[in-house]
């Protein structure tokens, strides 16, 4: 082989190497800046008890941090948060491509999944690995051991976030026992945003029962062990996930995997952990269909029992 051929081959090799390096750089640059803006919406029910502006500001910060962490060069990300007073308005916004992503309560998602094509990517919740459990508490000295004994008595529902799921669970439980639904069964039902505002009146025997998240009750016991002496659990729900983040299907095709990864890994940094703590999120998981099993079962059971109850009422008339 003569020297000119060697030179030619060497040049080709260098060119090939240079191409590989350049293409790798292009790829890396693309990965460094995968998303420059995101429009997220949620309904007012998702943030029950929290001021809309505060929730919007907090959500914006949370999302911007997650996305900026994914953009390796820390380029700013334009995040727009819109809060909707009604679920139908949110559905329209998704359909009109005004939103890329939505944060929903599981019940909201189940109600709209047939109207609009959304792909859930993340579920977040507090409580144990199963989700948030709800418990009905009574005072031991009042001798109320079953839910039936609470008929015509007072109850306080103290939940920080979703009110609908505990309400639905309570209704279903009453229907299972062939009892009237919450409003008719109890003498009065009060809703409180803070768990202590529900637990303490029961402890001081001012109210007969309360419905609170189990983890909150357990924490309250850790802070004040006397509560465990005075209070008892008479009913406990299965675990439910708190919220779900979904992407518009075409947006998901483009950015789904990156966004999922960004949100999944946010708590791997100290800053992300702090945001988790500050935003009161215990766990964040990649969405799986199984996460909706409990709520689907509850919904189904509630519908079946409601129908039966309606039939009974008609037959009775």
């Amino acid at each position: 082989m003569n020297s000119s051929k060697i030179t030619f081959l060497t040049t080709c090799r260098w060119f090939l190497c240079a191409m590989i390096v350049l293409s790798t750089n292009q790829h890396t640059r693309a990965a460094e800046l995968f998303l420059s803006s995101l429009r997220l919406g949620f309904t007012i029910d998702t943030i029950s008890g929290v001021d809309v502006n505060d929730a919007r500001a907090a959500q914006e910060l949370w999302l911007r941090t997650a996305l900026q962490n994914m953009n390796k060069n820390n380029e700013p990300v334009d995040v727009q948060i819109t809060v909707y007073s009604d679920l139908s308005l949110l559905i329209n916004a998704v359909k009109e491509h005004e939103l890329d992503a939505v944060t929903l309560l599981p019940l909201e998602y189940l109600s709209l999944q047939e109207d609009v094509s959304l792909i859930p990517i993340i579920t977040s919740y507090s409580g144990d690995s199963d989700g948030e459990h709800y418990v009905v508490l009574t005072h031991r000295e009042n001798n109320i051991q079953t839910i039936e004994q609470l008929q015509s008595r007072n109850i306080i529902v103290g939940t920080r976030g979703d009110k609908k799921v505990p309400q639905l669970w309570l209704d279903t439980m009453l229907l299972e026992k062939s009892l009237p639904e919450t409003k008719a069964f109890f003498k009065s039902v009060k809703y409180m945003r803070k768990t202590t505002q529900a637990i303490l009146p029961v402890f001081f025997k001012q109210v007969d029962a309360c419905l609170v998240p189990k983890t909150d009750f357990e924490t309250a016991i850790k802070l004040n062990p006397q509560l465990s002496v005075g209070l008892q659990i008479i009913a406990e729900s299965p675990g439910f996930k708190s919220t779900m983040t979904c992407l518009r299907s075409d947006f998901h095709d483009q950015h789904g995997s990156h966004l999922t990864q960004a949100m999944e890994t946010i708590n791997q940094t100290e800053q992300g952990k702090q945001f988790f703590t500050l935003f009161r999120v215990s766990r964040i998981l990649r969405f799986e269909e199984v996460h909706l099993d409990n709520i689907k079962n509850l919904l189904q059971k509630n519908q079946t029992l409601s129908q039966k109850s309606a039939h009974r009422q008609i037959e009775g008339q």
Partner: protein
Amino acid sequence: MKNLSILFIFIIILGGQIIFAQTNKPLTLDDCIELALKNNQQRAVSQAGEKIAKSRLGQARSAYWPQVTANGLAARLDDEPIFVFPEETESYSIGGVLPQPIVTEVTIPEKTIKLLGKNLFSTSANLMLPLYTGGLRPGLMQQARAGVQVARQNTRRTDQEIIYQVRDLYFGTVLANKLAQIAQKTHTRLSATLELTESLYKKGAGKVKKTDYLKNKIFVKSVRGMQTRLQSQADNARAGLAFYMGLSWETNITLSDSEIPISKTDVSLKQLVDGTLRFNPNWLSLQAGLNAYDGKIREAKSETRPRLALIGNLEYINNNYDKGVVAPQNTRSWQVGLGLEFPLFNGFRTHHKVKEMKARLTQLEHQKILLHEGLATQIKVLHQKLLALQEHLSSAQEALSAAQENHQLTDLGYQADLLEVQDLIEAQTIESIVQAQYHTLCYDHYQTYIQIEKLIGTEIERYLNE
């Protein structure tokens, strides 16, 4: 040839990576001590001092061996040495032949006698064996042996200092890293909170005011300053350790330990003082010094005593002349004898010299008492400090557990909306402060512990034996 070049480049790159990997391997404390003992120049100085002292001992020991010397001479003289026999007139009286004795004078004229030829070759061997030196030799031996002891203790002291410094720097670096990490964690947490405060104050419902944000910002920036200072201290500590180990300033070291060991001891003060008197290099050097002065006294006393030595001589001369002084009878000779030297009077110089040495010995014995008390007091102070630190450490450990539990519980309380964000930040900050206090105490405890070991001088034996 080309393939070989590529292979060569590959080997260089791979080799470079291996070397890089080796220098970046986290160093254990033992690695650091080994490196420091290998590279520290002061150790080489001390070891040379020990060799000098051993050589001096060899020199002193030579006094017990016979001193044998051999001489040789091959010379060509410009002229043959002569002996001039002067003219001599003698009077002779011859009696018995004649009635009157005959008196006559005979004059022998001046006569020149050749002593040896111009070419001279001579060899000789001399032997001198001291039989008795009046205590000079044992005195010198005793001093030389003490010199070796002192030099050996100097080497131990140097090793001890190196080991102590490395241990101190190593765990000082671990502490600095730990504090920098705590500060960084605290700063990150507070920054995240500040971001949220800023976001809520600018875009939120108005419950969070600008003053809340500014107060938060002041605190975060103070912590940031603290974090920068601690990070710089951690970097400096690492650089200091690398320098002490004799590594290049460009070397970036990482340490394998991330926790400071807590070596609790229940050894009594008496045991520690006894240990110090057995192993402390200063104490052992002083003992050797006492022996050296004892030897000096013996050396001084020997000046007044007789010295006896066996002396021998063997000689052979070769010359091109066989008369004169180089007649065959004179060319081979030997002699054996005893030499004796007895000093009679030197103006009381020896007497005063002995007195001086005795005074010096007494001075050193008093210094021994001072050193004993000094060492015991140092040990006592350090022992008390160690016990106090052990107590303090137990409390700090409990405080840390409480702070961690408080943080955990506050976190849960905040999650359940039972506690406020201020409670959470306070719990996080308190935990960080208590953590920093605890680790600083661990270091203080460790430093006191190694100070005791340095004073006793036992820890170096373990490292040197390993």
